[in-house]
Each structure stands twice: as C-alpha cells, then as structure tokens.
C-alpha cells in the first residue's frame, strides 16, 4: 500500500540529474529545462496527494517503507527508510505544493539568466533533500536531508557567482548551519548511546525512539536529565537551520540569492526544518520542561528582536527576511509551549503567505530591474525608497501582496489569524506557557502588522519615487509569475480554515478543528502523558482573540498614519531618535559583535596557522632538508674534479686496498 513512498523524493533527484548533466550541452532550451524541473516536483506533488488521501482514509496512521539497508555495523542498523504519518504527509503537501508553484514562477523569473539549467538542477536537488528530511524514518536519513538542504541553500545563495557579496553570504550561511548541525549530531549520539547502553534499545528510528523515550526519564547527564541535554543539542541544530537567536544572522544575508530561492528555501520550507524536527521528536521535547521553556523563550526573543530590525530596513527582501525570522520565532514559541499542532499549522500558513510575499517582492524587483535597465539607470531595484505607487502599475502583484500582508498580520479569517491566534492562546493558557512569553509574542504581533504594512505602503502606495526615466517602463509581470501569486494568495486566504479553533467552530455551528484531529496521532500521546494542554474559559479565549485582532489593527493603523497620512512623520521620528534609528538600521550591530567575538579570533587563529605554523615550521622543515642536501652536495662536488687521472688513482687505490684485504685475510 505504502511501498512506493520512495517515488516522492526520486522524481526531483531525477530532474536534478537530467538538468545538471544534460542541461548545458544538450537540452539548452529554457522551456524544456523549466518543464523538466517543474514537472519533477509536480509529479512528486501528485504522488504526495495520492498518499495523503490514502492516509486520510486509513485507520493506521503511521507507515514505514524500507527501501534498502544502508549501514549495518554491530548494534547500529540504519535503513534507507521512509515514514508517512500525518506530520510528514502535511509537510509533503507544503513542500511539493509550494515547491511546484515556485518552480513554475522561476521559469518566468529566471528567464534569460546565465546558468538557467544550473538553477533548476540545484532547486530540484533542494526539493529532493527536503523530502528526504521530511520523509526519513530515522534520524540519519533526516540528517542526510538536513545537510542536503544546507548544501543547496549554499549553492543557491551563491548562485550569482560573479558577485562577491553572494559568495560571502553563501559561506556565512553554510558555516552557521554547520554550527547548528554539530548540535544535531551530538543530540543524536546522546539519544542513541543512552537508549542503547542503558536500556538495550539500539535504535535511531523515530518511531522506536518515541516508543522507548520514557525509559530515559530517570537518566542523568552533566547534572541534568539526558533528555534535557539531548533536546537542547537538537534545539541548537534547530536554531542554526531555522535562523533563531543566536544563529539567525545568516538568513537576512541569504537574500543575495534569486528571489524564488528566498521564497522556497528561506521562507517556506528549509528554515522550517527546525520546527518540523521538534515536531518529529515531540515525545523527547515534551519530557523536558526546561528545554521547552528555552525553546519558547528563544522563540519569543527572536520574534521581537527580528521584528525591531524589520522596522528600519529599506531593502524589500530584507524586511521579509527579518519578518521570516520573526515568524519562525512564533513557531518556536508554539513548540515551546506544547502547542505542536499550532506550530505546524503556523508553519503551513506561513509557507503560503510568506512564499506569496517573497514572490510578490520578486515580481516587483523583476519589473523594477527591467525598467531601470531599460532606462540605463544604476538605482537599486530592491530599495523601497525607489518604489512607491506601484499599485496601479502592477495590480495583481499588489492584490496578492496585500492579501498576504493581511494574513501575516493576523486579520480575522485570513490564514495567519487562525494559526497565530492559536499560538498566542496556547502561550497564554498552556500548562507550559507563561504570561511573559505571551506578552512578548503579542508585542511582536503588533510589530509584525506595523512593518508589513510599512513595506506594503512604501512599495505600492504614495507617490512614485522611481526615477522618472524608468517610471513608464514598469509593467505587470507575465502570467508565469502572477499565476503562482494568485494561487498562493488564495491559499493564504483560505488555508486557515482547516484549523478553526474549537470556540469559534462551536459558535459557527460545530465546525471541527480538522488539522488538530489529523495531527493528533503524532502529538496527542506526548501531550496527554505530560499533561500539556491549554485550559481556560471560552470567554477568555474570545477575549484574547479580540485583543490580538485589536493589536494587529493598531499596528496597521500606526503604519497608515506614518506612511500614508503623514509621510513626513518617519523622517521626523528618525531625526529625533537618530542614534536608536542608526542602531536598528545597522541590525543592532550583531554582525559586528560576532565579527569581533568569533570571526576575527578564528581568522587570527587561521592566520597564525598559516604564517606561524605552515610557513615557518612546515615549510621551514621542507626547505631546510633541501638546503641541507644542497650544501652537502656543494661540498662533495669538489671530489668530482673532472680530471680522469684522479678517478684512475682512486680506482687503483681501491684495488690495492681490496687486494690487501684479500691477502691479509
């Protein structure tokens, strides 16, 4: 029944190989390359749909498909195995669905770029890796995907290979991800070793780990519970991949890559891998209230911290990048307070509206770039100060971008409303939640609404600040670009309806929370076991819901006042608080601090190893040996006089000596 799961990651891999090997020399045609790339992901999407529907109708909710044995050493048995359960099925739909749309969009967006084949090959490789991450039935297969998406992220951030900044950003992303990966591996080793050596269960299979996790409840390590240490290690991995404090700085720089890449990898899928991983190991995380608290706090602090930086950025993609970091913070809040369903729900809705926002910004950048290019201007095509008033020029982009802004701000009945509200409710009412986390999250939600509408207003409203020469060349993008926008905007609008909270569902006439019901087999067990639940009266929940709507509206209103009614207000504000503005504009100098603390010391160590050790010691020994031989030879060559009679004399003397020895013996 479920023995063809391997087909899902197989198609993108095939697409990657075909485009990668044949794209440059043999296929060449952009349309064919694009069709192969998009088709591969779309096929995966179809297979995913088939299994998703099959799973909906099935009573057993967890299915494994072992393809082959991979490692078999002593107690360690690792298979190339895939696991389909509600969690991975939902992720499959998001990855393949959004992935297909973004592939389609890329055909239009990347038209005429050099290395078109390379782009599609990498993008397919990314989807393959992401599907391995999602589908893996054990931690090592997940780790293959985990590293694979990191690699593809590196390749695609550095896609514009002739740009120094792109190369630097790619390296930064890769190195920071590696820091996190180290945590992931440590966590994995701890779990494997503890379960194996103390309880005789040698496994890295997720299902088996979950079933046997309770055995570790009494084990201690480094003065804390084993599960606490291990899950903190895993969480370090999640902070690297999902751009949380303190490892978030690579994500804003990752905007150097093409915009569809930012949409797919750095908004919708890869960066949510950390959230997914916590969901996958929710049994372990639920065992450690300490870790859960750390996760929630890190999420909350990231949410508010990134939001403040988003206030002062002028690059449209940077605003969205900080918004992504902030929204990922919301997902971690959800995971931390035990609202696993809400976290995954927000992951899904965020994938819709943030992908739509990124693709919308891509559409704007695409149009701006062409207009500026047409007018032979060097203005920055991503700077919102060069935009403004694009609403009339690009109606479809404006409409979809606006809808997504409403969704991310959490206006009622858009998808973001349901998911964000669920998170806020759990942060407030959950047994693992706290007022502190809730308070920070509400402030972050207010800020989100503000900076998203600031972005919307600066881009699409007000006067046109584009250079007059380029103004008339700005046009709406072609259908290949607008079609995915429309689909994603539609999903961003209605996507939340699968997770209507109970209080609202009851009010509207017994609409069930379909998502909670669907994901229950994955999360219910650990939530019941550790009494993780949100309790409170319906009135409280309605009150909070109303409050968060008011907060979102307040954010929007503030943005409207500052950027529509009184456009001179932001300038006066920054003049008044110039130091604060400069600090925010420079991202609180976090990059500079990291440079001073870690980067430079590492660099200096490298320079010492190079100039101190390698040049002086290693090269010194090698060159010293050569010089010694040279000096020896210079002395000894004096015996080679070139006078044959000297040689003859030596020969005679040698003969005499040998004969003498012969006789005397």
């Amino acid at each position: 029944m479920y023995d063809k799961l391997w087909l899902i990651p197989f198609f993108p891999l095939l697409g990657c190989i075909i485009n990668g090997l044949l794209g440059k020399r043999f296929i060449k045609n952009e349309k064919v390359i694009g069709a192969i790339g998009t088709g591969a992901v779309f096929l995966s999407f179809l297979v995913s749909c088939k299994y998703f529907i099959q799973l909906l109708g099935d009573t057993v909710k967890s299915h494994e498909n072992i393809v082959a044995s991979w490692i078999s050493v002593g107690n360690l048995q690792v298979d190339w195995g895939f696991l389909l359960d509600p969690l991975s099925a939902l992720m499959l739909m998001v990855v393949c669905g959004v992935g297909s749309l973004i592939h389609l969009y890329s055909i239009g967006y990347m038209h005429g770029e050099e290395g078109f084949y390379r782009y599609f090959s990498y993008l397919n490789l990314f989807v393959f890796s992401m599907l391995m991450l999602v589908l893996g039935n054990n931690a090592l297969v997940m780790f293959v995907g985990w590293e694979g998406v990191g690699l593809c992220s590196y390749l695609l951030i550095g896609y514009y290979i002739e740009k120094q900044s792109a190369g630097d950003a790619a390296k930064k992303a890769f190195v920071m991800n590696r820091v996190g990966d180290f945590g992931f591996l440590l966590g994995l080793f701890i779990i494997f070793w503890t379960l194996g050596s103390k309880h005789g269960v040698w496994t890295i299979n997720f299902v088996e780990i979950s079933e046997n996790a309770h055995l570790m409840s009494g084990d201690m390590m480094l003065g804390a519970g084993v599960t606490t240490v291990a899950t903190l290690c895993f969480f370090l991995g999640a902070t690297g991949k999902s751009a949380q404090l303190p490892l978030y700085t690579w994500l804003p720089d990752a905007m150097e890559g093409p915009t569809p890449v930012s949409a797919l990898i750095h908004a919708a899928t890869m960066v949510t891998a950390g959230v997914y991983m916590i969901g996958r190991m929710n049994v372990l995380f639920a065992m450690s209230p300490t870790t859960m608290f750390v996760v929630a706090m890190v999420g909350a602090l990231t949410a508010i911290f990134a939001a403040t930086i988003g206030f002062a950025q002028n690059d449209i993609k940077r605003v969205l990048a900080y918004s992504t970091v902030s929204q990922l913070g919301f997902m971690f809040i959800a995971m931390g307070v035990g609202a696993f369903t809400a976290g995954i729900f927000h992951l899904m809705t965020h994938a819709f509206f943030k992908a739509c926002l990124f693709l919308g910004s891509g559409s704007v950048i695409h149009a701006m770039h062409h207009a500026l290019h047409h007018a032979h201007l060097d203005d920055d095509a991503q700077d919102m100060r060069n935009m403004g008033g694009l609403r009339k020029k690009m109606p479809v982009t404006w409409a979809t971008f606006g809808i997504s802004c409403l969704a991310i701000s959490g206006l009622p009945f858009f998808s973001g409303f349901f998911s964000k509200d669920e998170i806020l409710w759990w942060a407030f009412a959950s047994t693992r939640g706290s007022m502190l986390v809730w308070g920070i999250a509400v402030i972050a939600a207010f800020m989100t609404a503000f900076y998203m509408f600031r972005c919307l207003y600066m881009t699409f409203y007000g006067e046109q600040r584009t250079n007059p020469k380029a103004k008339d060349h700005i046009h709406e993008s072609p259908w290949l670009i607008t079609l995915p926008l429309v689909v994603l905007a539609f999903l961003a609008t209605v996507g939340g309806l699968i997770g209507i909270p109970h209080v609202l569902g009851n009010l509207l006439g017994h609409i069930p929370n379909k998502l909670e019901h669907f994901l229950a087999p994955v999360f219910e067990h650990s939530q019941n076991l550790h009494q993780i639940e949100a309790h409170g009266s319906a009135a409280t929940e309605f009150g909070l819901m109303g409050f968060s709507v008011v907060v979102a509206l307040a954010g929007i209103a503030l943005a409207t006042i500052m950027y529509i009614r009184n456009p001179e207000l932001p300038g006066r504000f920054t003049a008044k608080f110039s130091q604060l503005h400069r600090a925010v504009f420079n991202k609180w100098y976090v990059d500079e601090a990291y440079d001073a603390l870690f980067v430079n010391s590492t660099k200096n160590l490298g320079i010492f190893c190079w100039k101190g050790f390698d040049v002086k010691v290693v090269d010194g020994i090698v060159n010293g040996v050569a010089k010694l031989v040279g000096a020896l030879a210079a002395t000894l060559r004096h015996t080679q006089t070139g006078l044959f009679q000297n040689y003859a004399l030596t020969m005679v003397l040698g003969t005499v000596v040998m004969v003498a020895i012969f006789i005397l013996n």
Partner: protein
Amino acid sequence: MISVYHYMSVAAILFAMGTYGVLTRRNAIVIFMCIELMLNSVNLTFIALSRHLQSMDGQIFVFFVMTVAAAEAAVGLALMITFYRNRESIDVDDMNLLKL
C-alpha cells in the same frame, strides 16, 4: 735458473710502471702506451703461469688480450687524431668539455 717467480716479478714491475705512467702523465699517447705496457705485463703473467701450470688456457687468453689491444689501439689512435684536429692538443687536461 730462471723460475716463474722471476717472470712474475718482471710482470709486476712492468705493471707498476704502466700504472704510474697512466696516473702521472698528461700526454694521451704516453698514457696510451702505458696502458699497453700494463696489458703486456698481464700477458707475461699469463704465459709464465701457463708454462708453470702446464695448461694452454693462459696462452689462449693472451691471444684474446692481444686482439682487444689491437682493436683498442686502432680506436684509441683514431680518437686522438680527431681530438688533435679539434683542439691542437692531445693533453688529457684539455679533455674537459663535459665538466660543469
């Protein structure tokens, strides 16, 4: 009575003289003649011992040595003439073209 020892002594003296000549003289022809002297002292040894041991082997060897010596003389003299034509000298100290 002249015994085999006397022949051997003469041969040793001749060989030593030849060796001394090869090592000390500079003129290629003289060196060449000294080599011939050494060869002949060896021949003398062969003949003397052949008679002493009542065996023909030594005498047959001498024929070979003489043949080789004749060939060597032909090639050697040809070389020296060529060298003299090029350098107007047959001093071995001048044969240093291969020296660094």
